[in-house]
């Protein structure tokens, strides 16, 4: 779609890896919920990769059929990652990681793709991220509602 195969390392993109949860981590989350008789909820992000902001400067040609008269030689500068671009997954991961940090949902230091939010009275919320799918569980249902409201607002489907 965005001619990702034409991108060159070091110029058009730097790091391209993005962390995802291991299956064992997900299984651990399920067993934790089972042990404490918690419920696990699930959310999913639409058009995920369009949410990521770019670190690099990327320019694209004007798409065929949409070339502006008298400005035929100009190109577009991209603001957000595209599907098909090499850094799209990582840009998305960076974006959502920042969102978690801004909302005091801490990254688990032992297992990647797990985020933990602690509140007063030992209330706790666990979030597990797999690219655009996330599951969450914890001991406090009002925290679920707050989290859902906040993340839905942040990653609105309309762009």
């Amino acid at each position, binding site marked *: 779609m965005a001619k990702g195969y034409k991108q060159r390392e070091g110029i058009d993109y730097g790091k391209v890896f993005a962390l995802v949860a291991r299956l064992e981590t997900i*299984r651990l989350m399920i067993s934790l919920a089972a042990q404490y008789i918690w419920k696990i909820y699930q959310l999913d992000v639409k058009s995920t990769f369009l949410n990521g902001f770019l670190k690099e400067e990327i320019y694209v040609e004007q798409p065929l059929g949409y070339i502006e008269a008298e400005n035929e030689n100009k190109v577009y500068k991209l603001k957000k990652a595209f599907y098909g671009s090499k850094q799209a997954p990582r840009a998305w991961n960076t974006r959502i990681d920042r969102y978690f940090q801004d909302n005091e949902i801490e990254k688990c230091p032992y297992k990647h793709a797990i985020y933990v939010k602690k509140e007063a009275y030992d209330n706790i919320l666990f979030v597990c991220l797999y690219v655009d799918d996330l*599951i969450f569980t914890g001991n406090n249902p009002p925290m679920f509602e707050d989290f859902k409201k906040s993340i839905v607002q942040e990653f609105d489907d309309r762009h």
Partner: protein
Amino acid sequence: MTDIDLMTYFLGLEVTQKEEGIFVSQTSYAKDILERFKMESCNLVLTPVEKGVELRKSKVGNVDPTYFKILVGSLRYLTCTRLDILYRVGLINRYMETPDQSHLNAAKRILRYIKGIIN
């Protein structure tokens, strides 16, 4: 962002949350594997490992390594909920470089076993 509510299906894991606990299975994934390796209507076996058969490394593998690796990889994903096949998958795992018919037979036996436990 879509609210799916209770987790029911995640990365091939089917999750049922009830009062008594959480049930996790990979039934549809297991069915997909059987279909992919054309074993949907195979005969069943009750154990994943055949008694008395020793696997050896072969110098010239006569089975396509890519095909074999796909099979091993698919079975490995299934070990997430089926820990009873973990030992056997670990055994055939060693012969991925030059697999021969005996290794493929061992792998297919796991598929026959899965067919029997799928429900």
